Each structure stands twice: as C-alpha cells, then as structure tokens.
C-alpha cells in the first residue's frame, strides 16, 4: 500500500479559555501554518492567532466605489444624454433621484465582490475539499469541541515535539490527518450536480405552483373578461346550445319604432311634422341629408350627383311635385322608398328623417328666394358686420 502523505496534526480542547491559551502559546512559539476551528466565534481569537487584518476590505472598497461610479455615469448617460426625458418636471440630471440607485448598486457590487473575492482568493474556488473534511476532528469541532490543526508544511513541524506540546497544553485528543489519495472536487460530482438540479426544479416548481396556482388572484384586467356571451358563442344555459337568441315576438328596440304605413302609397294625411324649424334641427338635417341623400340627389337636391348616368337618374327635389308634397309624403318616401329608391328606415331614426324633411324645405326655399328674403339676409349680414 502506498504511503499516505501527512497533512498535519490536530488537537481538541474542552473550553474556549483552554484553546485561547493554547493558541497564544503556539503562535508565540513561532508556528505559522496552523488554523483554529471552533463551533462559534470566540472573542479575542484574532489577536491570539496574531492574524493580520484581512485584505478583503480593499476588494469591497474598490468594487463598492466602482458600483457607485458606474451607476451614476450610466444614469447620467441614459437619462441626460441618450434619451433625455422630462419626468415630474425634474432636470435631466436629477441627482437626488439617482442616489437611491447609486446606493443600491454600491452595496450590490460591494457585497457580491466580497463573497466572490473570499471564495476565489481565500477558499481556493472551485476546490471545496480539504483534508480535514470528514475527519473525527472536524466532527468534534462542529459540535462542542475547540480544535487546532498544525500543518506539516510548517517550517517548525516536528511530530514528536508537537504531540508533547499539545499534551502539555491539556488537549483531550490528538489526531493525525492525511491527504486523500486522489484530489477530488466534490463540487463537480454527478451526485452534487444532480442534487443542485433537483433542488432548482423543486424550488422553482413550488414557487410557480404557490404563486401562480395556489395563491393566484385575478388582477384587475380592465373588464376584459365579463359575464356575458359574445356573438356566435356557445351557451351552456340554453338546451339548444345557441348563445344568440331570437328576440321574443313583438319586441321593439329602442329608437326603432316600426313604421305603420309600410307599403301604402299615400298615408301623408296622417303624418304631420313634429320637429320645429330651429337652426339646430336644420343643421342636423343638413348633416343627415349630406350623408344619406346627397349621393343620389346631389348636395343641393338638384338630382345632379356623381351617380348620374350610372343609375336611373334620381329626380330633382326642386320639382313642383316635390315642392307641393306635404311633409308627411317625403317622410313616407324616406321610410318606405319609392320604386327604385330604397327605404332608409333602418339607417335613420324618426327624428333624423323629419330633420331631413325640414332641410329639404330649406333647400327649396333657398332656390326660390323672394326680394324680402334677400333684404332680410342683407340686414342680418350688416348686423354681423360683414
């Protein structure tokens, strides 16, 4: 069997006082490569071991400062140079608003660099193995004992002398530690990686399940989903499964009173214009006339629209026939249509139809203005200062 290489000698002690005294003796005897393991931190251990202050602080300082600088410069570039935006009326370089983020980034880089620096420079990452791991010594010091280990690499290392020293200091157990036969990286073991993977899936899955299924609450979605049936949708409520229903017989929709005289030729005597000739109703009628009637009858009712020639010519509305028609007759034509002119009852409401009738009357009057009409218009224009 191959001779095993010695890592060092370890000794266990019972009380914190004993170990502090022992460490003081060992460090003053000139041993350099030794380490102490205790179940909890002991006040005064650093001094007893004659440890120099750690250099780790410098890494923290450098990275903390660069975090601050990076955050400030980046926000300055983003908010003041690349995409300046006025936010809350503040200047583009709004220093007070940048400070919380600068602070966060300082702390973030400082802590991360401390941990990563510690792992790489002091714990020789990625190796996370150590000859002491798995020994009885390590088991004891992680429970209730206090231990010292002196490495064989120390210049003053001498097996017999150290054993004598340890027992003089009152140790309760001495153990010799060897290097393992082959250097292993427990970190890269399949078992460990598998373990990490399972943990990742488990925590990820549990988090997803808890947050998205177990505790999930519908956020306010601006009424995107409602308790209603959209057209063509299937309904569980009705036995035939149709969501769209035929209205009950005799249902009248708001604003769509059925026209009583459908199909009749001349019901004019029953119909009288309920709308007063006001400026407002005339303008309203003009708007509706231009929308619905002008494509065929022309903008001023002359029967000269762009449809001319492509369609049996629509007649003028300034004929004596139309001029002499009672209001009800025109209303009836809009409702009912006449020969090839279709009915406009589904596009227009009752009020709109009457307003159109009024507007036609206005057009007719305008085409046949009298002298007194002209004078009145002149007077009005003068009063308006034109």
């Amino acid at each position, binding site marked *: 069997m191959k001779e095993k290489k010695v890592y060092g000698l370890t000794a266990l002690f019972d009380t914190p*006082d004993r170990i502090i005294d022992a460490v003081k003796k060992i460090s003053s005897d000139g041993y350099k490569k030794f380490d102490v393991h205790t179940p909890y931190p002991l*006040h*005064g*251990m*650093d*001094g007893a071991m004659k440890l120099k*202050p750690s250099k780790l*602080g410098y890494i923290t300082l450098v990275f903390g400062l660069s975090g601050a600088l990076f955050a400030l410069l980046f926000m300055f570039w983003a908010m003041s140079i690349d995409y300046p935006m006025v936010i*809350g*009326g*503040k200047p583009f370089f709004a220093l*007070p*608003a940048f*400070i*919380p983020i600068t602070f966060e980034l300082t702390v973030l880089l400082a802590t991360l660099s401390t941990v990563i620096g510690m792992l790489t420079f002091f714990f020789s990452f990625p190796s996370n193995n150590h000859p002491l791991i798995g020994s009885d010594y390590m088991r004891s010091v992680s429970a209730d004992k206090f231990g010292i280990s002196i490495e064989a690499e120390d210049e003053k290392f001498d097996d017999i002398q150290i054993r004598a020293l340890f027992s003089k200091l009152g140790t309760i157990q001495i153990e010799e530690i060897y290097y393992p036969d082959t250097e292993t990286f427990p970190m890269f073991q399949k078992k460990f990686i598998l373990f990490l993977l399972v943990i990742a899936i488990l925590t990820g899955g549990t988090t997803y399940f808890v947050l998205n299924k177990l505790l999930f609450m519908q956020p306010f979605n601006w009424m995107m989903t409602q308790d209603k049936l959209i057209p063509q949708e299937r309904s569980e409520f009705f036995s035939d499964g149709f969501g769209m229903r035929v209205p009950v017989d005799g249902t009248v929709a708001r604003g769509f009173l059925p026209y009583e005289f459908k199909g009749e030729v001349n019901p004019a005597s029953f119909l009288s214009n309920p709308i007063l000739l006001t400026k407002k109703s005339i303008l309203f009628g003009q708007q509706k006339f231009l929308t619905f009637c002008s494509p065929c009858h022309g903008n001023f009712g002359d029967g000269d629209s762009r449809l001319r020639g492509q369609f049996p010519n629509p007649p003028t509305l300034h004929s004596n026939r139309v001029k002499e028609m009672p209001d009800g007759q025109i209303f009836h034509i809009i409702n009912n249509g006449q020969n090839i002119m279709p009915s406009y009852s589904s596009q227009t409401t009752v009020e709109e139809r009457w307003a159109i009738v009024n507007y036609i009357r206005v057009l007719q009057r305008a085409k046949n203005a009298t002298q007194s009409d002209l004078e009145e218009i002149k007077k009005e224009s003068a009063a308006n200062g034109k």
Partner: protein
Amino acid sequence: MANRVLEYQKKDLPQNMSKLGWALFAIGALAGVAAFYVDNTRAAYNYLIAYMFIMSVGVGSLFLIALEYVAGADWSVPFRRLMEFFAALVPLMFILIIPLLFNLNELFPWMNKKLVEGDAILTGKAPYLNSTFFIIRVFGILLLWTLFFYLFTRNSMNQDSTKDQKFTKRNIIISAIFIPVFAITLTMSSVDWMMSLEPHWFSTIFGVYYFSGTMLAALATLTLAVIFLNEKGYFGKLLIPDHLYSLGALQFVFINFWGYIAFSQYLLIWYADLPEETVWFLHRWSGSWAFVSIFLIIVHFVVPYSILLSQPAKMDAKRLKIASIWILFAHILDLYWLIMPNMNEGKSGGAVFGWIEIAFPVALVGLILVVFNIRARNKNIIPVGDPKIERGLNFRL
C-alpha cells in the same frame, strides 16, 4: 477568564477639569445673559439650540443605558456609569427650560391667537398646538424622563455596594418600558420644540431625524469621556482598542443613519414638490442659508464618514477623539440649521453668525463638564457591582 479580581480603585476626577468647566460655563452664561439684552429674539433662538443639545446628550445617554440592558451588551458595561452621569442633564432641564418659557411667544408663531384665528391650517392644528397642551406635554415628558433617570441610576448605584444581580434584572425591565416611551416622547419633543417653529410645515420623519442626531451627540460625548478617563487610568486597567472600536462603529452607524434619514426626508419632499412641504427647504436655501445647507452635508456626513470608515480609525484613540469633537460640532450645526432659519422667516437675509452664536455653545460645553464632575464626585467611575463588569473589561472583538 473568571475569578480575576477587579483592580479598580476609586479616584477623584482631576481638579482642573471641574475648573475648566466652571470657567467655560461662567463665560458662556455671562455672554448669554448679555445676548438676551442685546437681541432678545436671536438669543432665544440660540438658547433653544443649546437646550435641544442638552436634551440630545441627556436623553440620548438615557437611551444608550436602556439599549445596553435590553441588548445584554458586555462591552459597554464599564462605561455605563459615565452615561448615567451625562443623563443627569435630564433633571437639570427643569431649570434650563425657564428662559424658554419666558420667550415662547418670540419663538412659536402659533402661540399668537390672532394669527391662528385668521389661518385655517393653524386653526386645524390648534387642538394640539396650543399653549396649555404644550406646557402639559413639555413638563409631562420631562417628568417621565426624570423618573426613568432616577430608577436607572438608583438601581445601578445600589448594585455597587450590594453586588446583587436583581438590580440588573430590574433595570432590564425598566429599559424595555423606557424604549417605547422614549420613542414617543422624543418624537413629540422634536415636533414641539423644532418642527412647530414653522407651524404650517410638517414632516413625518422629523422625529427620527432628531433621534439620529441625539444618538450621535450622546455617543460622541461618551467617547470623549471614555478616551480622556482611560488615558488618565481611571478604569483601573487599561481599555483596549476593541472597546474603542465598538464606540467608533456605533458612531459610524449613526453617521450613516443620519445621512439616510436626512436624505429620505429631502428626497420625498423634492420629488413630490408640493408647495406646503418644499417651503421648509426653500427657507434653508435662500440667501446664504444655501451654503449652510451644503456645509451641513459635508460636516455632518462626508467628513465624519471618511474619518471613521477604516477599521484602524475606529480603534485609534486620537482619531476617535477628533471624530467625536467633530460630531459634536456637527450636531450643533445641525440644530442651528434646523432652528435658526425660522428666525428670519419672511424677512430677507440669510444665515446669521456672531458672538451670540458662540456664547451658548461655550456655556453648554462648560455645563456638561460641570454636571459630569458634580455627579462623579465620590462615585465609582465604573459600575463595580455589575455582574458583567469583568466580561466588559476583558472584552475582545
């Protein structure tokens, strides 16, 4: 480590310390009285600064005592007696308040009935901000603090001779009661004495802001006393850098805390930009006050932060002394910045500074020295009967 005999011997404080204290106090007080004749309003404002400083050190020390008990700290046990001496400023405030009582109308606009009647906001605040309730609050709070001061020191003193652990237990219970009481009363005091100087303005973080200064003032005074007495060998055996480190670390913490709170207050008001809130900062940005405001950031945060950042600095008596004196100055400047701009409110003119502004701090330092000396007479400098005193003296980081 147990069973080491305490090698402490009672020694009287040096004579010249008390003399210096009396001399400073006499000069400052005389100048202060003169100031009241020369410019009553300005003197009243300066007196308020001094009064708030005394409050910081007195009640702050009381709070540090309570903190030691509830946290079960070992390292500060050897200094607890010093905090008890400083806390003696609290009962003294019953006397110190008198000049303020005569000048309440000078200081607080809301005491003016006519002004309040014509002002909807002040009328709304009147149930709290009125003279009667103010006086009740102020004296009620002083009484409460004095009561706790009496209980703490009596138990601690009794322990010196009896060495009975039950006094520690009692003080722990009293501390647990005192801490919430302290939180509420200190907030009320800061609102009553300083925030109400500008009665339209309000800031919910104001009490915490004053608290951060309070802690700094109490810690800095304590550190100075510890370093001074340690150099002269008053602690029996020498304290080691580990003790100083703990004091320095606490100072560093509260420097950061002050910066954090001060900035929080500023950021929220700056961002919301509401006229009723920004007015307070605008008063501190008009004229030469802008320089004082910037100076305050440097004096109260940047400089002490830099001094105390490294570990060796917190362990070095000399640097810690400088930091402590600096922090005391910073606290006075902070109070000056909080209180003085209200004197010129509405009128033109920036920061005022002259002999009046120097007189009161001089009297203040003298007074603290004198009170400390009188309290320390014939008493042990360290609480020899405390069960944790040995561990405290042998404290290692």
